[in-house]
């Protein structure tokens, strides 16, 4: 549910990092905060945590200006992964424009991934969104850990879904985080451009959208 106000020429989009508890959603966001150097970047707001677990949510605003003066903002949210925070998850998920599903690669966590994915589908339905039409990227995190399910097996398992190919990441080491984010931006652009004519009305083409919003700090310096 993009928040568009034509009089202020502003467009705010919401991206939610969803997934089972301790799969690395906040880590993804923290890495994006330190690795990204988009046109505009706000402060990473990490709300209350207890023992490194998110209680409310984290939020990172980034943005870019179009040729038309369009003030485009992207707010990146994480949800608390623990089961008991379902109503918070639902509140954060409402009016989302895109979702990054952060799964845990460890073999023992596959059931939790499935439960969280089911919960995502259910909550999207409750807030009036359809998982099949919502731009989404699926990331399997913690590839650096021993005993993870193999790449090939995971890719094969998800091959028949709209979210293939999967993104492999090791968020703690900053690997695959930006790649995942770019895949998401690509899928998000299709939807947003269709609705708000980013290219024709505001001079923001797909490449600009992805590059400006996901410019890496070192790339920028180069």
């Amino acid at each position, binding site marked *: 549910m993009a928040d568009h106000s034509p009089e202020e020429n502003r467009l705010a989009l919401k991206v939610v990092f969803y997934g089972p508890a301790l799969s690395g959603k906040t880590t993804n966001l923290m890495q994006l905060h330190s690795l990204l150097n988009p046109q*505009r970047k706000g402060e990473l*707001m990490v*709300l209350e945590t207890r023992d490194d677990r998110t209680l409310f949510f984290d*939020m990172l*605003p980034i943005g870019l200006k179009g040729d038309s003066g369009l003030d485009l903002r992207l707010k990146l949210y994480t949800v608390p992964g623990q089961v008991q925070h379902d109503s918070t998850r639902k*509140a954060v998920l409402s009016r989302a424009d895109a979702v990054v599903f952060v799964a845990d690669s460890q073999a023992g966590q596959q059931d939790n991934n499935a439960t969280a994915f089911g919960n995502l589908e259910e909550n999207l339905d409750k807030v009036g969104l359809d998982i099949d039409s919502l731009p989404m990227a699926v990331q399997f995190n913690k590839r650096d850990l021993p005993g993870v399910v193999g790449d090939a097996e995971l890719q094969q398992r998800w091959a028949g879904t709209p979210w293939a190919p999967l993104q492999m990441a090791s968020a703690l080491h900053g690997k695959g985080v930006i790649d995942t984010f770019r895949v998401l931006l690509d899928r998000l652009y299709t939807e947003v451009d269709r609705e708000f004519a980013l290219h024709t009305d505001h001079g923001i083409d797909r490449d600009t959208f992805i590059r400006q919003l996901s410019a890496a700090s070192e790339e920028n310096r180069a």
Partner: protein
Amino acid sequence: MRNFEDDPTLEDLLTSDQLKRLNRMLSALCREPVEISGNRDSGAVALEFNLETVGWLSGGSSGQERLAAADLVSFLMMFIAKYRLAANLHHDTTEASYAELQKQNEALKASEARYRALSSQLQDKVDEQVAVIKQAQMDLYESARLRSVGQLAAGVAHEINNPIGFMSSNLKVAGEYVSDLRQMVPDTDQNRELLDDFADLIGESSDGASRIASIVSDLKTFSSIDQADYTLCDVNELLSSAVHLLQTEYGQDLDILEKPGELPKISGHPSRLSQTFYNLLDNAAQALRAGEQGTQGGRILAKTSVDSDGVRVVIQDNGCGIAEDIREQVFDAFFTSRPVGAGTGLGLTVARDTVRAHRGTIQIDSREGKGTRVTLSLPVR
């Protein structure tokens, strides 16, 4: 309603008192007083929070001082906003949870009402079944009572049969003796009167004895004492003998019209069929007697025919008919509309049981004051 994620304004983050205090504290740190407001003055520095300009800072001794103060404010804003966001989210989720709870409560109430309705229906159903059971119990009790009455009647009939037999025959002989006496004693008025009275007494007693005998015979049939084997019966013959028996009982002035049809013989119980025909004819005769014109002008029709259902026997009279309010009860055992002692209340009961035993049907059509028609249908096989 604002969403928790809407960008906060300056007023959302700070109350006017807090804003004044912040201005004072910042002014104390700077060389010249500074002021934060929602209006952009010339030279003012934007106060940014999350890419959003929430206010403007003006005053101070230099641009550098203003920038430093604005940085400090932005830094503070983040913590205030964090708290706001968390509080708003908490509020939103609490409200959503409450709404959901209320919805669940409504659903629970509805389901409770449904169960309540169900339980009251259940009570009705239980009451209904209890009534059925009570009725069944009553019927059972009634039939047991009738059975025991029947057994008693059979016993009594058997015991009475012998004494009534010798009483009848003795009375007959006594009557002959009275005739003999009449020739022996001197023919005086006094003797003649005495002997006439004597003869009447014996005659009445004899009538009484034969009535007792007929009741006993009804009772015996009713309680099926003499169970004989089924044989091939000629219904016309049985009906005709019953007619003759009745005419002997009532005298020749009883007008009975017989219309026998060509009938096949049926398998049946001759004495019970005879008894049935007799009972029905007797009822017809009684009806004539009770009717307005008495037996004069009264007429009984006894007709037989054959159709696809088997043998049909119609016994029709133009007597008093059966009152509507008792029509339901005519087949009940011991029900009688006749004066006490005049009927056993078993005639139609015996007739019905006999017809049923022959797998036939009995039907009564009657109009009060006009007459009654009883139709028996007896299957040939």
